[in-house]
């Protein structure tokens, strides 16, 4: 079975994840009911002439990609695959509001040009002069998962090095509208998020990129063994059955999984099935959480993969990430079980390599 070796990562999130030394020591809480990404000074990563026109999603994506490529010391990649639920929302909204406010007059094309969902992937291709395979997935909580599934197939088709990433941005207006629609809750009512009894999430944003290699190299940080998506599973038992089958495919059982990162969002309805699974996970494995760090967004699972890579690299589960009180003696296998809106579920298995 094809595996993917992670040789570089880049992560922009509400936490200090852009700092290679940071290891979940100081944690930034949500700004009430949402998170903003902690953005770096982009000048280090993007040429000023390009930077001027880029929207935030593009900047976050290009910078995170840049970090991953630098760490991997990749000269070139054979494919660029991005995932994003809402794409370049800031540019879309800018063009939309200008159009509505000016009755379709006096419009300029820049924000329209940059509003397409594949802008981040194509900007990276332009910068890297990469004429190879370029794909953008835009399916809610499967956007990033689809990039990994595609990369695994491409390795079987002969590609060697692939850049994958998940990007999401929000705008002040979009936060206001979602708050008006009752989609949020204050972080204080949902601490810790896996114990929340109320509805609502903390919307967030960020970009996480990975350089994946078909073969293990001295740069390899961790290995992606497999990925599976589940659309609208009916019960937590369904999920558990599928999980056992998924792990069996990789010749593992739940007891072999040292850390299980679970996608609790703080919304009692969306989290219901994960909550039912939690005692089983805690018994067999060691449960941990990631959305209290990154917030909820379509491609939060990309952040989770960054966390999983760090845990494997450092061989340590910080208290700020753990749900269980247990301390794993080693971190060989990390499983991510994500859910988005209680509709899109996914398993991602990573291992020490």
């Amino acid at each position, binding site marked *: 079975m094809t595996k993917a070796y992670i040789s570089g990562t880049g992560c922009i999130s509400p936490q200090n994840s852009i700092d290679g030394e940071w290891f979940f020591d100081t944690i930034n809480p949500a700004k009430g009911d949402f998170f903003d990404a902690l953005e770096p000074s982009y000048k280090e990563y993007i040429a000023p002439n390009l930077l001027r026109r880029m929207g935030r999603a593009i900047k976050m994506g290009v910078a995170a990609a840049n970090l991953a490529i630098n760490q991997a010391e990749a000269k070139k990649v054979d494919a*660029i695959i991005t995932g994003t*639920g*809402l*794409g370049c929302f800031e540019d*879309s909204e800018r*063009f*939309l*509001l200008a*159009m*509505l406010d000016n*009755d*379709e*007059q006096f*419009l*300029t*094309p820049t924000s*329209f*040009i*940059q*509003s*397409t*969902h*594949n*802008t981040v*992937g*194509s*900007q990276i*291709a*332009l910068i*890297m*002069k*990469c*004429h*190879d*395979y*370029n*794909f*953008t*997935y*835009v*399916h*809610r909580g*499967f*956007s990033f998962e*689809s990039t990994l*599934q*595609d990369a695994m*197939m491409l390795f*079987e*088709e002969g590609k060697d090095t692939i850049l994958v990433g998940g990007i999401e941005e929000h705008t002040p*207006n979009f936060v*206001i*509208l*979602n708050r*008006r*629609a009752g*989609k949020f809750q204050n972080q204080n009512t949902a601490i810790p998020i896996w114990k929340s009894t109320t509805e609502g999430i903390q919307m967030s944003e960020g970009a996480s990129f990975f350089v994946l290699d078909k073969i293990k190299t001295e740069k390899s940080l961790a290995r992606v063994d497999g990925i599976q*998506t589940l*659309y609208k599973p009916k019960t937590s038992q369904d999920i558990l059955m599928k999980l056992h089958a998924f792990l069996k495919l990789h010749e593992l059982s739940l007891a072999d999984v040292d850390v299980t990162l679970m996608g609790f969002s703080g919304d009692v309805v969306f989290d219901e099935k994960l909550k039912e699974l939690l005692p089983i996970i805690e018994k067999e494995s060691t449960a941990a959480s990631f959305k209290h760090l990154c917030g909820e967004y379509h491609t939060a699972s990309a952040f989770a993969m960054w966390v999983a890579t760090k845990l494997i690299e450092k061989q340590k589960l910080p208290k700020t990430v753990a749900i269980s009180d247990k301390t794993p003696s080693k971190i060989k296998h990390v499983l991510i079980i994500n859910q988005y809106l209680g*509709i899109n579920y996914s398993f991602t298995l990573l291992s020490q390599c």
Partner: protein
Amino acid sequence: MSQRVYITGLGMISAIGNNVPESFLSLSQSRTGIGKINHLTTRYKDEFLAGEIKLSNEALADLVKDSNPALNRNSYIAMLAAKEAVMNSGIDTNDGLRTGVISSTTVAGMSKTELYYKEMFVKDDHLNVLDTHDCGDSTERIADYLGNVDYVTTISTACSSAANAIMLGCRMIKHGQLDRVVVGGVDALSKFTFNGFNTLMILDREWCKPFDENRKGLNLGEGAAFVVIEGENALNLRKGKALAEVVGYANANDAYHQTASSPEGYGATLAIQQALAMSGLKPSQIDYINMHGTGTPNNDLSESMATKAVFGDQVPKFSSTKAFTGHTLAAAASIEAVISVLSLQNNMIFPNLNFTTPIAEMNLIPETKLVNTPLTTILSNSFGFGGNCSSLLFKKAS
């Protein structure tokens, strides 16, 4: 090793018809669907033409028999075309085989979002638009409408989107991850898209003239088209009938400019060459090319250059069918896949409407009348913003 993949069902709704038989009639009678704007609300209504679906949202809601107020035009047309494809193929999604839905769209629910976006800040009536604005919405509506779908995902690579959906579907079957898959694309016309293309100054105020020296730009259209792709194992199991085989596909990037194609059509050349290489067919074995041919000065020149680079002086018969449907963006490649299969089935090349004068430096002349000729292999191109270039190769089912 990996199994062969076949198209076994077609579904389509666009300006030239609400289903495949109606579309075929329009194509074989050289009747364009592009005309005066009726449904889209825009101040430019009387200045431009568009390829609109001839049904109101209410009429579409009646057709899908679903009164859920959360549905939008994008979902209605996607559901209709996907259902038609599944009915046409005869597959039963309840038979235990693994079925996927891979769709694609560029602006998704924008046609509804733009109506209520400002109102949502002060009134609560349409806040549910937030749930249906994104690209995944229509895909999940299709999946639920069909029932028993194991896998869903959505692609957005601008105007090449549906070609990539078709490609991914084929690959997932070849990799043994799915037995069959409903693939395609959808884009309902929105004021947002219309104004976007207008600011880029690539809209023709008259009927678009692909590959004509005096072409001024494209006409926007709207539509949805889906095809059912089955692996030969699943097809043989149910003794189903193949309509065409997908024998080649490729995805490359022009990496030249965010919106413009490189003058020499480098990305397009790569996509065509790689699709040919995969199929094992020589350029001389291609019977017809359904071009991307939007009618913009930039695309048609660049695509002509790429065509010459691959085929030299032996360019196969070709036409762009965009002057029938308008440019339907994410749906374009699946609409043209359906048209290509209709061409194979009927041995007919549908004409490149509105063409009179060849591009001076190219001297490439498309088919301008309906041509009845034996067809075995068809190349279909789709290119998009962001340099995304994809080519598909269809072969008559043997």
